[in-house]
């Protein structure tokens, strides 16, 4: 992140190369534009000039012990959100309310904090820094920007459209989460690092009691979209009244902690094995049991056909020899055929 201080309403020193554009439609800079059009020099657009009022800043950082995927996800979120700031990794020994102080130092009023446990499970905290509500999620199914299947691309720092499922309006906890997402993820209008075009859309959908996040690029005006990434799934754990502290406002009854989940799987496999063993034992017991003798043959009358009995005739004398008929006076085949034709 650049460390120079940006003047309000002025051009940042590096911006001349970054943006070469003829900015359309800003009335205050119209006379300048005309001059520049004559000179045919493209000048960066003075985006803010006192118009940036929504001073929303998000602090995105993590605890120690995260893996590469989480790190990339954080970087991707920082790329997508120009109103974000980065910070160094927080030691896990510190209590969570220290984060509020960090936010204050960095002058941020929102925070996205990623916490990794057991090098396997990733938890995400999203909170409104000084007083506001906060929520803890379990993050699953992370796919980052770098995946080659996500073929879309967007301007770095362009403002996103936010799309919400109507289910967000039905429950009070979802409504609160919706407001939190809106304030955190939407880039402020006329933010100095933002681009003036809207070319991508974030979607938040509720399915299977989880929140699914997707990011699509808008290619055509007729709403043909391509996915840019990143994508992840949030499983709500708890909503707190304060920022990282405070009474619990909502607890998700459908949430199953990853430890419990793994335990369930292990128990299931153990139960299955035990069942197999029991069945085997039963079978061996059955085999070794004393069996009753079978008196009646069940298949005895399968082939019994209802025919009347023939009288048994015993031959006392040998049968007569058969008379051999050898017609030696038959014509040859050839002659026979000739004659037949004639």
């Amino acid at each position: 992140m650049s460390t120079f201080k940006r003047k309000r309403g002025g051009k940042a020193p590096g911006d001349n190369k970054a943006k070469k554009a003829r900015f359309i439609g800003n009335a205050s800079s119209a006379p300048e534009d005309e001059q520049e059009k004559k000179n045919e020099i493209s000048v960066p657009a003075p985006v803010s000039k006192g118009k940036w009022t929504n001073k929303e800043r998000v602090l995105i950082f993590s605890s120690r012990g995260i893996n590469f995927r989480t790190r990339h996800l954080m970087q991707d979120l920082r790329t997508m959100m120009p109103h974000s700031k980065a910070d160094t990794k927080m030691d896990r020994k510190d209590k969570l309310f220290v984060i509020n102080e960090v936010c204050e130092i960095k002058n941020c009023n929102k925070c996205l904090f990623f916490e990794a446990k057991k090098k396997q499970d990733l938890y995400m905290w999203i909170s409104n820094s000084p007083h506001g509500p906060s929520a803890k999620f379990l993050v699953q199914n992370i796919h980052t920007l770098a995946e080659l299947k996500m073929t879309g691309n967007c301007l770095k720092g362009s403002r996103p459209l936010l799309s919400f499922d109507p289910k967000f309006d039905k429950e009070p906890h979802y409504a609160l989460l919706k407001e939190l997402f809106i304030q955190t993820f939407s880039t402020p209008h006329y933010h100095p690092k933002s681009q003036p075009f809207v070319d991508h859309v974030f979607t938040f959908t509720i399915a299977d009691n989880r929140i699914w996040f997707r990011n699509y690029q808008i290619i055509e005006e007729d709403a043909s979209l391509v996915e840019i990434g990143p994508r992840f799934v949030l499983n709500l754990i708890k909503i707190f009244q304060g920022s990282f502290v405070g009474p619990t406002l909502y607890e998700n009854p459908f949430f199953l902690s990853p430890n419990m989940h793994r335990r369930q799987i292990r128990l299931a496999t153990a139960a299955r094995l035990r069942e197999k063993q029991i069945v085997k034992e039963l079978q061996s017991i059955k085999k070794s049991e004393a069996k009753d003798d079978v008196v009646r043959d069940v298949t005895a009358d399968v082939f019994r056909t209802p025919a009347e009995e023939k009288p048994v005739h015993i031959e006392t004398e040998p049968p007569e020899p058969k008379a051999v008929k050898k017609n030696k006076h038959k014509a040859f085949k050839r002659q026979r055929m000739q004659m037949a034709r004639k």
Partner: protein
Amino acid sequence: HHHHHHNHNHNHNHNHNNCTKKWRLFFTRIYYLFQLQEAFAKGLLKPGMNILVNEPKKHVNNVEGLKHCLANFRKGLPWVERLDVTNPPAADVVAQAEGKLPTADNRDVNADDDFQREMFFYRQAQATVLEALPLLNKAGVATKRPEDYFAEMAKSDQQMQKIRKKLIAKQTILEKSEKAKKLREQRKFGKKVQIEVIQKRQKEKRAMMTAVKKYQKGMTDKLDFLEGDQKTAQGSSQANKKALNKKGPNAKRKYKDQKFGFGGKKSGKKWNTKESHNDVSSFRAKVAHGKGGPGGKKGKGGKHNKRPGKSVRKKMKSRS
């Protein structure tokens, strides 16, 4: 003793503030034990095994608190700042076309069916875009990037190149497999045709042989089989032969025949064929009619040889 008790109390208070889960469990268990003792004393518990049944865990759902919090937290920003749209997904054109339209009420998407789920998200995004673009145009926010606007993109050019390469590779692999499949099919078909033709020929041969044998043995005295064969051969196998001969022998076969067939290529082609018979390029009119000899012929004196004799020819040959 008393003093000691005091101390214990003090510690107890301290512990409660920084209570870890273990201590909490311990205290709850002691509390339950105490309750059991009380109940037994009162005679509420029956003799026998009393199993402690955990009451179902109550999940906090402080609706009032949530609403209150939301009311405080909400910022009354204009839509242009937020750019949020809440909408159900757009109509699924593909499913409608196939007739697999789910009931309009059932909005729940099956999270396990990957394709359906992703299409659900896609359509939700589409509906948002369709709804939001006119609003954006009204608010004066640009959505289309002009052609000459070059700015940093979220994914670097290198990344996009990688993606493109991967897509192209996938495409070529698909095409190759398609071609290979078609070739295999063709070969199989060709083989089938070949086998059929061979079998047919064998059948005909067999029929012919039996007919001949019959005639030899005198069973039939008609020689129909000769003509019959010709007729049928001309009629049907022509078509077949034509079809086969179109492909003809392989190019490889042709080359090999040319190179090694009939004992191999001779150094020159000295065959008495139609072409060679009609070839009159080596005809020398002067030599043939004896024109322009050394001062003309001596009338019809000696036999002026247009063609020198064998020994002379031999000498000429050995000389050149």
